[in-house]
């Protein structure tokens, strides 16, 4: 078995995060853990997860193939994901993707012959105010026109580690997968790296510049009470004495798309 005792120990830690009898919830983090060891979800990785959770390999495989971030082939050290969704796409992301694809000689979800760089296009990365964006091992590089992206990739090829625009200094994809499995980033100071970008702060800065704040805010405004407060010394979490009628007949509206109302 390729999985070390350390990996098994980590797997136990992951499983322990979820309630008794609900171990299956650990499957996504376990698959990230597998990628932290192997760089992709290998057949042994599937077996490893199945074994940890008492599932069949087919059950694990069905889940692994559903999610974009689980890779089915070995990946490079650097996963370069270029957003080509509409906003980034029209602002230059489409050209960025094509320039990188041409330069690296690989297409979507392919890795360069030296095994260093995997290229993919990505869907909206929730950073449209910095469009066009790309990520390297999921860390953001903002406003990446084709030329900027080519420079960046050449730096990676030369063994440099350019610093992301927001977020922490780069680590390898395997190292990142360990964080995705829910483990803390142990690198000294990494949590603090990456100031908020200007676009993030644009509204708050404008308000500050014009001295705007919301009037009438009194943090001591009393909360009106109909119920008696729970006894502080009551031993944990039992439901308080007075509770409303269960709203079993309550029918929330059919969930609508992010847009809302049906």
């Amino acid at each position, binding site marked *: 078995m390729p999985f070390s005792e350390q990996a098994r120990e980590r797997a136990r830690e992951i499983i322990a995060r979820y309630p008794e009898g609900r171990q299956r919830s650990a499957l996504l983090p376990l698959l990230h853990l597998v990628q932290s060891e192997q760089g992709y979800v290998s057949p042994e990785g599937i077996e490893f997860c199945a074994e940890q959770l008492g599932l069949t390999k087919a059950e694990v495989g069905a*889940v692994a193939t559903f999610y974009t*971030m689980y890779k089915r082939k070995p990946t490079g050290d650097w996963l370069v994901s270029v957003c080509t969704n509409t906003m980034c796409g029209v602002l230059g992301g489409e050209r960025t993707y094509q320039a990188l694809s041409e330069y690296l000689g690989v297409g979507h979800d392919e890795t360069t012959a030296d095994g260093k760089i995997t290229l993919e296009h990505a869907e909206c990365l929730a950073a*449209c105010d910095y469009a066009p964006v790309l990520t390297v091992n999921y860390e953001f590089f903002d406003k990446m026109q084709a030329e900027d992206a080519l420079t960046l990739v050449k730096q990676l090829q030369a063994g440099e580690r350019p610093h992301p625009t927001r977020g922490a200094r780069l680590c390898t994809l395997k190292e990142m997968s360990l964080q995705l499995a*829910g483990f803390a*980033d142990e690198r000294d100071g990494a949590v603090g790296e990456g100031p908020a970008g200007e676009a993030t702060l644009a509204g708050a800065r404008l308000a500050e510049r014009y001295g705007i704040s919301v009037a009438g805010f009194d943090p001591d405004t009393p909360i009106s009470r109909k119920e008696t407060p729970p006894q502080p010394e009551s031993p944990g979490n039992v439901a308080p004495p007075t509770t409303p009628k269960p709203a079993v007949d309550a029918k929330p509206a059919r969930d609508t798309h992010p*847009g809302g109302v*049906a």
Partner: protein
Amino acid sequence: MVTAPSQEALAKLTPVLTKRWLSPDAWRLDVYERLDGYRALRKALSVHPDDLIQLVKDSGLRGRGGAGFPTGMKWGFIPQNDGKPHYLVVNADEGEPGTCKDLPLMMADPHSLIEGVIIASYAIRCNRAFIYIRGEAVHAARRLRNAVAEAYRAGYLGRNILGSGFDLDIVVHSGAGAYICGEETALLDSLEGFRGQPRLRPPFPATHGLYSCPTVVNNVETIATVPYIVLGGAQWFRSMGTEKSPGPKIYSISGRVNNPGQYECSLGITLRQLIELAGGMQPGHELKFWTPGGSSTPMLTAEHMDAPLDFEGMAGVGTMLGTTAVQVFSQQDDVVYATYRWIKFYHHESCGKCTPCREGNYWMEQILHRILAGKGTHEDLDTLLDACDNLLGRSFCALGDGATSPVTSSIKYFKQDYLDYIEGRKAPTMSPAELVGAH
């Protein structure tokens, strides 16, 4: 040229959730505490949980994840004394194209979310909360995990929080790249370790959610708003926004404006005012089309610049407020291409569970591509609208409904742009070789 905003537009700014973002180290517990952090929690723990639910009902807070469901009512649906564990699941899967507010919030001010989670959990009597964060969002997840660890060390999480007798554990759970997992029931399946596919409703998560137990699913911004309501009160909260859509809201404006970014404003601000706040349109760009709340909300035009960006105002012009992801496009942008690219997205992200969405998006993508490649016909437009008819209201979940938005709204407002391709007035902009994306 960046233009100065008018007084009217400036008056719409409501720095509440975003104010602390200006303090670069607010992600650290000690800084957060200096800036009023965990003050709302102490106050909340001193009252009965039902009083908190009532407070949130009184505030009129509506969900910030897109659908605008009243938050206090959602909390009130959780049955009490039912002997089952209750769960709070925070939806941090931010993936609706255009939306970019939740990740910066968790990056700049993660403790405000955690404080909101603790208060909400106390209110619904939940002892275990999950934050399901989009996998790709590693920068925000790193801050969030760190903040959770800090909160445990300081006694804000764990057993007997601040001596109240209340216990809470929070697990930060990273997804793995699937837009559909933002849909709340797909999210629950994913969190249980399955493929992220939506569930049949009823039963609703309020009674049969995570592990078949009563569950509240709320968006990041919704939960992060709660501490401010606890501090300032319902009346103060209602001093912002409109009667039916009260409070401040983080608008994400992107595209052809001078200063794209996050602008927290009174609900009901107009696009005209938002664009002013964002420094005006970029030189040489004139507004052509825009989305009020992500790609799943029907697009609007320059005619709609004065419609209030709140739930009612957007319904009034045939669209939806969605996630307030305002994407601004100009006459230099191709609305047919934009629609094509969004449909490619929906096709890629369709979970495949139901036929109208799985097949409909596949075919719509092919047809839009054909039009862009100069091979479209007049019938193609009818076929697109037919496909939308078969999708809207017939799909298993709202992803399918959302996919019809860009298609029907672009044909409604910009049919001429389609006809220009179809009738050869506009040169093809794509060839099959240029296909990237869906696979």
